[in-house]
């Protein structure tokens, strides 16, 4: 335990350094790449003076170091991510408004991916070279070779357009539905809080296809990881001894699965962080209105503060998730100690 607390303390000490790197990267990625937002805002027909005026207004006429200093100062003294070039709203508000939507999508999608993927991987390794294995591997091959946007469109075409089981991909709820009172910002949670069961059903109905798209697409990662680790574990001495002691097969697989737990949890953490930007295409396909969709939009418009804010928030979130991940892995496996 002594080693563990020491290791965690060391890990925490690293956080400020990492935060500074993320802040700088967020700035650098946007400001050192070519492209002039003033030109985008002014449009093709604007005169040079007009463009210069807009540049002055945005502050992009100043040299990069000066802009960096202003950005960092604003961040720490005013706790502000700046305002959007286009909507003139504070970036922080834009992000917090959309964050819960993406969070819901990512959590549900990952949950589906983990459950489906681990099930596939477990069947695959337990019934190695028999038909469940073949079936599972076929599923993995298919889902990982279809791009996520195409899978989304395919599901919309088949399940909405042909069969009619899913509603139209118009967002969180129907176009004519009144959204629930905003408490957490997450539609499903808010309908739960409002006890609006009809709307909850609608929300789940609308979430079905995007969640299934994400779940199917990312299930292959979990299926492959589970299969690899579990196959090894099922051949291990501890599993043989568990069987020799007369434990039931379910219990034996449980023993083996405990070895697969750590890599699966690690994958969950990594994908969770990555999906806040990575779900953007699925969000766009389903008009989800989440963080990723907003970020893509901002990038296309060269809305510098918005892109900076997005990179910063997702970067910090990633740091946080990785830290939690380390703590969870330590808690799950008594053997792990970062010496």
């Amino acid at each position, binding site marked *: 335990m002594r080693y563990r607390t020491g290791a965690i303390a060391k890990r925490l000490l690293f956080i400020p350094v990492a935060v500074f790197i993320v802040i700088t990267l967020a700035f650098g990625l946007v400001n050192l790449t070519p492209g002039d937002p003033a030109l985008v805002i002014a449009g093709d027909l604007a005169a040079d003076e007009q463009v210069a005026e807009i540049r002055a207004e945005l502050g992009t006429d100043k040299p990069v170091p000066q802009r960096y200093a202003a950005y960092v100062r604003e961040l720490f003294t005013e706790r502000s991510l700046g305002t959007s070039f286009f909507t003139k709203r504070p970036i922080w508000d834009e992000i917090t408004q959309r964050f819960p939507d993406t969070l819901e999508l990512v959590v549900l999608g990952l949950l589906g991916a983990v459950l489906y993927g681990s099930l596939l991987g477990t069947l695959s390794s337990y019934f*190695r070279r028999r038909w469940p294995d073949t079936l599972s591997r076929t599923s993995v091959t298919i889902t990982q070779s279809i791009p996520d946007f195409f899978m989304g469109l395919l599901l919309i075409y088949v399940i909405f357009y042909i069969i009619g089981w899913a509603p139209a991909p118009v967002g969180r709820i129907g176009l004519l539905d009144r959204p629930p009172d905003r408490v957490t910002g997450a539609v499903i949670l808010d309908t739960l809080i409002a006890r609006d069961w009809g709307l909850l059903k609608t929300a789940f109905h609308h979430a079905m296809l995007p969640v299934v798209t994400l779940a199917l697409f990312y299930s292959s990662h979990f299926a492959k990881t589970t299969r690899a680790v579990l196959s090894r574990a099922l*051949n*291990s*001495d*501890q599993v*043989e*001894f*568990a*069987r*020799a*002691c*007369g*434990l*039931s*097969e379910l*219990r034996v697989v449980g*023993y083996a699965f*405990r*070895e697969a*737990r750590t890599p699966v949890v690690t994958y969950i953490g990594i994908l969770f962080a990555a999906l806040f930007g990575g779900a953007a295409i699925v969000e766009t396909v389903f008009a989800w209105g989440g963080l990723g969709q907003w970020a893509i939009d901002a990038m296309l418009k060269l809305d510098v503060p918005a892109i900076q804010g997005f990179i910063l928030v997702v970067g910090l979130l990633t740091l946080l998730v990785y830290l939690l991940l380390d703590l969870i892995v330590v808690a*799950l*496996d*008594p*053997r792990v100690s970062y010496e």
Partner: protein
Amino acid sequence: MTAAAAPATASLLEVSDLRVQFRSRRRTVHAVNGVSFAIGEGETVGLVGETGCGKSATVRAIIGLLKSPGRVTAGAVRLEGTDLVGLQPRQLRQIRGARIGFVPQNPFGALNPVLRIERQFRNVIRAHGRGRRGEIRSTALDMLDAVGIADPERVLRGYAHELSGGMAQRVVIALAMILNPRLVVADEPTTGLDLTIQRQILDLIRDLAETEGRSMLLVTHDVGVVAQYCSRVLVMYAGQVVEAGPVRRVLTDPAHPYTEALLAAVPRRGERLVGAQGTVPTLLELPPGCFYYDRCQYRSDPRCATEAPSLREVGPEHWAAVHYDKGAGIRLPAASASAAPSDADSAPGDM
């Protein structure tokens, strides 16, 4: 052949003409080729042979845990009259752990790394529907005490990686014997342990078997261990039992040339170490004659190359799969000098 290698008392385990094959698309490995033996009540039988001779496959076939693609293709394994080979997985599961205790090679590998030891005891006891609520813990504590764990409470609370090698093997033995099985199968239980601890563990297994009148099959490649801990010995070669009999007789007066070679390979002070010549057949294709033909120093009988010898009685309760007769005086002087020393009673046991 079933009468061969029979114990003096009523037998608890009876293996007859057991055959195990590992079949893949490209090739078939004949791992066990007609093994027959029996173990009596309270008897400790040693199973010796070099790596790859089919010891492990025989043991796994007995407890019904052959790894794929291994399969029992013929023969029977009778435990108190019940043939385990054709049993449903569920019935077999109830026998494993409860009526046959298995002590594996590697104690660290055998324990679950992320479950507390107490949970592992609980799971084993529960799997057989034994132990009432609240009793399980005390049963586990008693058993840990019996295997010589100094602080059972602490061990129960802890994890496998906190134990030393010797302690881990004690815990494994406790788990294997917690349900008081009549038969214990120990597969090289001291491999990988320190020499001093090896002896303690073997003493412990023997004591636990003796006090409860358990029978034991002790698999080892160490002739010294057999000499010290077993009453009878089975010598395996290329998936067959080539010699069987009381330890003293087999070790002092081996009837099979392979046993002789095995004994000659035991280091002894002041003597040149003699290893067995040649290598084990691949077991992909079984030779028509004696499996030991290529390595045999005594091959003389015309049948040696064409007909596989079966076990026949060469002395009181002493069986060997040989065609030639030692009584006819076909022995090589050099080999016999080191293979059948007069002081063999004690020598092979002292390592």
